[in-house]
């Protein structure tokens, strides 16, 4: 009987431990700024989700190790959602009641689902390098912040890069470009911009969706072999990327003619393919793998050396680790900026953090001082521009590591702005939102 009671207690504890919420450090208290962390450490996308989450959490620890934000310590709690939209929304609902003042879902699907909720709850959504492209327009999307770049930025730069290789935008006429994309809101996001560019420059756009999780792509690559496109854009996530590269190898498609989005340009995407992916290039969300940056050295010294690192030490500085770290940094800087207006050393509310994110001004000097020299360029947001930067580099896999290119590309602001405004105005009409005027923005 005693054994049974013990076994029951153990089982209940085990269920508690393995429940959806992995509370690694849930200590949201007064005088602490609470950061909810939506993660996927299990499931089909765990290999990519883990380094992002580790980078995100490690940066919060680093800020704490340096004394917090003007003395305000940062607390956090992870919620595992397995890249499933319904579970992501569930995590949001649960964590918002714990004092969340900024959310980063790391999923375009979850972002779409939360875009209507955020204004009601008055919690900003930071979607660095993903989410709705038209949410750059902060006059309509008051609570969305696709900082550093959207998929329209990525698609635009991808076409610019292909054109540069071909000898100019006019050389794109008559060419065929295939988009192999994850059949989800994430994968479909670049299509409008690519169609616009195809109309402008006269190239043919071939759309090839790949069903989740992307382990079966034989038919897709047979179609590529038959159609013989000049270039393939890879818009994948997780196992879809390495599978695409292996299929390209198996069908003899040159990896040099493949260009991936920044979510298809990390170590887990190519490590397993190794030399088979040599020559494959991918966009970067400014940064690449940055093992020699100062912020990474600080991280190793002040967090990992003290046994407080979240993940393995050798992962620090890898591409997705840096993505998580930078995502964390911009959110923290939003809080810092908000404190400048609403009181240093105070815990900020969601509305105050939103103001901070909308008035970010991370110039190069500030970034360099924070240890991001050579990692990223300045970010400056405003009411009308919630993205703050549209600079992209290209990195190439040399068979063993990512090598960042030296050229920087900037998305075509004129083309992008028109598309963003069209789409955001349409959204505003649908949702009966009155866009903020420049005067309202100043308040």
């Amino acid at each position, binding site marked *: 009987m005693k054994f049974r009671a013990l076994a029951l207690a153990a089982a209940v504890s085990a269920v508690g431990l*393995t429940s959806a919420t992995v509370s690694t450090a849930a200590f949201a208290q007064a005088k602490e700024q609470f950061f909810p962390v939506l993660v996927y*450490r*299990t*499931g*089909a996308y*765990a*290999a990519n989700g*883990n380094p992002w989450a580790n980078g995100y959490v490690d940066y919060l620890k680093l800020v704490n190790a340096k004394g917090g934000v003007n003395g305000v310590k940062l607390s956090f709690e992870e919620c595992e959602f397995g890249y499933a939209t319904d579970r992501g929304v569930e995590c949001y609902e649960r964590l918002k009641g714990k004092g969340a003042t900024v959310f980063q879902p790391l999923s375009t699907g979850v972002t779409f689902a939360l875009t209507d909720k955020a204004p009601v709850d008055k919690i900003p959504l930071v979607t660095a390098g993903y989410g709705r492209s038209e949410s750059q327009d902060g006059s309509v999307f008051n609570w969305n912040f696709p900082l550093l770049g959207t998929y329209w930025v990525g698609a635009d730069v991808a076409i610019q890069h292909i054109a540069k290789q071909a000898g100019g935008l006019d050389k794109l006429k008559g060419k065929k470009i295939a988009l192999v994309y994850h*059949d989800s809101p994430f994968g479909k996001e670049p299509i409008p911009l690519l169609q616009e560019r195809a109309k402008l420059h006269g190239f043919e756009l071939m*759309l*090839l*969706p*790949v*069903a989740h*999780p*992307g*382990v*079966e792509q*034989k*038919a*897709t690559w*047979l*179609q590529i*072999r*038959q159609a013989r496109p000049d270039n393939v854009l890879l818009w994948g996530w*997780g*196992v879809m990327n*390495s*599978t695409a590269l*292996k299929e390209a*190898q*198996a*069908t*003899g498609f040159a990896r040099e003619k493949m260009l991936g989005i920044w979510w298809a340009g990390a170590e*887990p995407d190519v*490590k*397993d393919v190794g030399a*088979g992916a040599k020559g494959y290039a991918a966009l970067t969300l400014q940064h690449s793998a940055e093992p020699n940056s100062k912020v990474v050295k600080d991280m190793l010294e002040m967090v990992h050396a003290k046994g407080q690192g979240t993940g393995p030490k050798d992962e620090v500085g890898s591409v997705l680790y840096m993505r998580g770290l930078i995502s964390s940094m911009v959110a923290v800087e939003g809080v810092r900026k908000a404190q400048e207006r609403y009181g240093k050393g105070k815990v900020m509310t969601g509305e105050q953090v939103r103001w901070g994110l909308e008035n970010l001004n991370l110039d190069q000097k500030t970034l360099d001082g924070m240890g991001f020299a050579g990692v990223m360029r300045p970010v400056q947001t405003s009411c009308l521009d919630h993205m703050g930067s549209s600079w992209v580099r290209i990195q190439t896999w040399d068979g063993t590591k990512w090598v960042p290119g030296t050229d920087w590309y900037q998305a075509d602001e004129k083309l992008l702005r028109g598309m963003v405004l069209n789409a955001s105005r349409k959204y505003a009409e649908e949702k009966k939102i009155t866009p903020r005027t420049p005067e309202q923005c100043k308040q």
Partner: protein
Amino acid sequence: MGFFIETLIGGLMAGMLYSLVALGFVLIFKSSGVFNFAQGAMVLFAALAMARFSEWANAALGGNSLFLANLIAFVGAGATMWLVAWAVERFVLRKLVNQEGATLLMVTLGITYILEGVGQTIFGSEIYNIDVGMPKEPVMMFESLFEGGILINKEDFIAALIAALLVGLLTLFFQKTPVGRALRAVADDHQAALSIGIPLNRIWVIVWLVAGVVALVAGIIWGSKLGVQFSLATVALRALPVVILGGLTSVPGAIVGGLIIGVGEKLSEVYLGPMVGGGIEIWFAYVLALVVLLFRPQGLFGEKIINRV
């Protein structure tokens, strides 16, 4: 024409791999009446064990002999699958004899989550490599007959050969060995098999072990192709239309069903996909299977069940 043949061959080779996974479903259903939804998780678990044992053995051997490391890993992973088989029989099946089929199905769903969770906890959730020396570069054939030739993926071709060999061996095992005959006897009638002294518990361990070995081979092949990571568990979903089509109780059904589904989904994606925006191959496989069920509810090779009332 050349492209059609190339698509057809690609479909046949993919279909052979689906057959291999489908075989795991059929083996367990035939002998215990359990629709083992955990087959995909077993593929993942076995592949994780193989990949990590190989990595650890290779490191212990100083990186000098990948072949020996793989051999040790194969034995280790096989032993691990034996442990899984034993645990499933001892803690699950033995207690649930004669329960409703739906109950047993739900139990295997539970086993799925346990295997996925425990597998990732023990072996990790990163992407791991299984290097068994499979060739990655394609070969071009019949260039003089067809413009552009026919491209054959050597890795898929070898994988299909291994799958075919394993299917052949399993058929022999079932038909020609005493254990195989005992398995078939249990499949036909549990009570009758028990009455003539066939130990039901041991037979169930054997059949789950055989399904485990099939999962291990499938895991090595798919893991070598895709890398060993969580998505391998979803490979089982590719085999579901195969067992629907071929029948749950037929080994030849799993093979023929696999080939039909493999060819059907590739041809549909390549030729019908562009008309409807693409991405149809996964659900089209189920359409194909369900159409067959309209005419043959027991599947192509399944046993027709007639209940007299």
